[in-house]
């Protein structure tokens, strides 16, 4: 489209996430799949390189790897699960955290600019995995009946309140958690991507395609705002990865804890 000829602006919306396959005909190979695969390659490569030597005196790379690993191991897993049993869950939590983090940040990285988790399937998968793991951990430790008693009958509640408490606790601890986990992550990524799209594409449209000088000025401001939004998004993307993994760790911790 040439500048000066007014064209209709198509604002980014849900349809912006409906991406065509990268190779026509191969329907499953979409951008999020590619980005997710790349993130797996990057994570595995980085941690393989960092952990390979497992030296007492770490190299710079190993130190960086340990920093990343320790963050999940100590600040998330150990704090939430407790030092007795947390090591079992560190591999999953580590993989989960860096998988979500890289795929979220992919929404800000130039040229990629697509947060994988804005496709809800990925968020469902991560939430279901966490859900299965924390329930399985609880059942393994307390048995099916003991676990459900632990999750639905909080200690210190009078017996006559139990008919009320059991459904509420069951819904909040068993049913809602995977939904809230997945929706929180998905919605943040989805909305962030749209927000960025509105600012960047809107600014672009106003500057280059609206054909109005005034709109062009506004467009420049919009574009600059878009940069600030990108910074905000980077923050939100990191925070969401952190929240997802912290909540997973807390669910595991509360499922296997001795007291409610």
């Amino acid at each position: 489209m040439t500048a000066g000829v007014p064209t209709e602006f198509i604002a980014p919306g849900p349809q912006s996430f409906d991406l065509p396959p990268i190779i026509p005909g191969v329907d499953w190979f979409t951008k999020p799949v590619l980005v997710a695969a790349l993130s797996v390659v990057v994570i595995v490569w980085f941690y393989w390189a960092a952990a390979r030597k497992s030296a007492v005196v770490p190299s710079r790379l190993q130190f960086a790897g340990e920093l990343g690993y320790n963050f999940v191991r100590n600040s998330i897993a150990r704090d939430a699960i407790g030092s007795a049993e947390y090591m079992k869950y560190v591999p999953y939590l580590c993989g989960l955290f860096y998988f979500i983090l890289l795929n979220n940040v992919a929404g800000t990285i130039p040229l990629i600019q697509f947060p994988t988790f804005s496709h809800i399937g990925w968020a469902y998968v991560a939430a279901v995995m966490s859900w299965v793991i924390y329930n399985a951990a609880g059942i393994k430790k307390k048995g099916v009946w003991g676990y459900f008693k632990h999750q639905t009958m909080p200690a210190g509640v009078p017996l006559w309140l139990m008919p009320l408490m059991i459904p509420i606790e069951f819904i909040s601890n068993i049913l809602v958690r995977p939904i809230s986990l997945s929706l929180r992550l998905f919605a943040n990524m989805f909305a962030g991507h749209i927000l960025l799209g509105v600012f960047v594409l809107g600014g672009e449209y106003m500057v280059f395609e609206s054909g109005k000088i005034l709109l062009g000025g506004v467009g420049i401001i919009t574009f600059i705002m878009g940069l600030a939004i990108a910074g905000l998004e980077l923050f939100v993307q990191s925070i969401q990865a952190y929240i997802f993994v912290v909540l997973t760790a807390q669910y595991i911790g509360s499922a296997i804890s001795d007291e409610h």
Partner: protein
Amino acid sequence: MTTLVLPLSEAAGEDVNPLLPHTAEIIFGFVFLILLAIAFAKFVVPRFEKAYADRTAAIEGGMEAAKQAQAEAKAALEKYTAQLANARQEAAKIREDAREQGAAIIAEMREQANAESERIVTHARAQIDAERAQAVASLRSEVGTMATTLAGRIVGESLEDEARQRRTVERFLAELEESESARQAVGTDG
């Protein structure tokens, strides 16, 4: 601005429900997450934990070695302190002994000196006595000789004159006096 926003609903045309997942993504999601968990469980976590354990062991080993070195240093210090105390004690003892010995030597020396002086005095006295006895003896024989001589002279010159007689007597007396003073001088000499 409304014109900008308006086309959205139209463009959305075919309904895209963002809450419906794609099957492929679900499958890949599970595959990737499980892959990552396995990679961490099998490779990353054991290696990092091994590094941590090694590090802890190294630090503890270092601490153990340091503790041992400290104990050794302490033992050495105690040893040296004990040795020093011994040495001091010994030095004090030696000094004490020396003082005692010195005192003994001085006392002995004094005694010796006393004995010596006694001996010298006794010896001198004995010598004096002997000399005096000798002098007395010699004087005695001399006096006898002199008396005889004088008597002879007196008899020889018998009556020459009274003046000569007197002279003779005076000479004799003078001689006698001389020998007396000589004898006295010997006596005082010891």
